[in-house]
């Protein structure tokens, strides 16, 4: 595919979205494309840096994540405070099932070697592991939505936000202090020469933060991934005759409306589509495509497919993945974002121990 045709593809995607669903959807498609371009083009990820700090004492990617979250928080906290009717942070409750699910997500994430956004971006960039995991991720998110209310009923606190506890300015200060402490801990843990982000990661963190803020301003809600995937699964189920109106989750007015309406009216679906296409464009733009992942044994492929299912299910129960719960949750003051990070990071440590036993290269 020639480079000009890639630009035409992107233009057609945005113009087609505009014609079908209006200017907001088109703007969100642009944001989604931008996210895909940044994440794939500048090799900014979530699962990889977590693995790198644990196994290689390389903290550069993780520090970049914390910087990006802090940059979003600097803008999001004042905006959420000034426009509470129009803008909504990624706020969710902490609960027993939520913490356990975040732990499980972190474990599965290291087996698939991608989180929510990573699975979409990697699939778009031609990574076969991610494409194998994606259908399971969609199915898992849908199945998780069917059971989420039950899991949440096992024991859940009210929704706590840092701005709710301390006020907007002090809540922002607490968030930035927490992120600074995490950066210091990462730098302390990292090996010399692997402590501070490269210029590429600084650029990626800045662009990602700008796109996340744009997402908030355009959509009225924070950047998320998992809701859209669950909705995609629900669309298939609905078409197959599954009576979703009897389920508490899908009977809720906001979700029932999304189920009835086109995916192009769902903000998370639109940015998800944009991310996959953006990553595809970067992959095709490169003169030489990167190598495919190594061939795995049949059992290992089965592990990847099942891990995708677990990723989807657990992220639904945990109120999001690295994006919706961690990135957007922490940057908009949700206490559950911090709990999610701690649980998922612990799960990642287990996942990295399991990985050599569960994923084996063929031959």
């Amino acid at each position, binding site marked *: 595919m020639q480079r000009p045709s890639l630009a035409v593809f992107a233009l057609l995607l945005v113009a087609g979205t505009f014609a079908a669903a209006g200017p907001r959807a088109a703007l969100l498609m642009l944001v989604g494309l931008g996210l895909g371009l940044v994440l794939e083009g500048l090799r900014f990820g979530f699962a990889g840096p977590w693995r790198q700090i644990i196994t290689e004492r390389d903290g550069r990617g993780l520090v970049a994540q914390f910087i990006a979250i802090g940059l979003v928080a600097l803008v999001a906290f004042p905006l959420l405070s000034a426009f509470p009717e129009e*803008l909504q942070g990624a706020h969710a409750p902490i609960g027993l099932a939520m913490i356990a699910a975040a732990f499980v997500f972190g474990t599965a994430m290291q087996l698939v070697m991608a989180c929510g956004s990573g699975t979409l971006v990697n699939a778009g960039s031609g990574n076969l592991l991610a494409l194998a995991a994606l259908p399971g991720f969609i199915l898992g998110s849908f199945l998780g939505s069917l059971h989420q209310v039950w899991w949440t009923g096992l024991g859940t606190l009210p929704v706590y936000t840092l701005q709710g506890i301390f006020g907007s300015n002090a809540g922002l200060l607490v968030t930035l202090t927490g992120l600074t402490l995490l950066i210091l801990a990462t730098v302390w843990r990292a090996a010399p020469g692997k402590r501070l982000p490269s210029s590429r990661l600084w650029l990626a963190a800045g662009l990602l933060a700008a796109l996340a803020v744009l997402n908030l301003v355009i959509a009225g809600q924070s950047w998320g991934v998992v*809701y859209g995937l669950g909705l995609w699964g629900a669309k298939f189920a609905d078409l197959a005759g599954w009576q979703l109106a009897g389920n508490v989750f899908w009977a809720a007015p906001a979700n029932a409306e999304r189920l009835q309406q086109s*995916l192009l009216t769902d903000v998370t679906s639109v940015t998800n589509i944009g991310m996959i296409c953006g990553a595809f464009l970067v992959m095709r733009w490169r003169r030489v495509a990167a190598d495919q992942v190594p061939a795995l044994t049949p059992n290992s492929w089965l592990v990847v497919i099942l891990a995708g299912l677990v990723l989807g299910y657990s992220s639904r129960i945990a109120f999001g993945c690295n994006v919706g719960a961690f990135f957007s949750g922490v940057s908009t003051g949700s206490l559950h974002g911090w709990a999610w990070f701690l649980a998922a990071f612990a799960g990642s440590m287990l996942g990295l121990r399991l990985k050599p036993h569960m994923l084996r290269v063929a031959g």
Partner: protein
Amino acid sequence: MSKNGANHNTGLPARPLTGFLSLCLLALIMLVDAAQSLPIDPYLAPAPLALGSGVAPQSAHCTNLP
């Protein structure tokens, strides 16, 4: 990479082919959506930006509990 889009060293489909398959999966999802959803009413399209629109967001997000 061979003419059929497979990597010589692994036998797996190369990245361009796999990326194309991802787009095919997206196209399938959009086809299912088109068959299952109501047509989009252009008169109900939201304002370009939520900020300043005076309208509450969709509340369809990973963090929302029904």
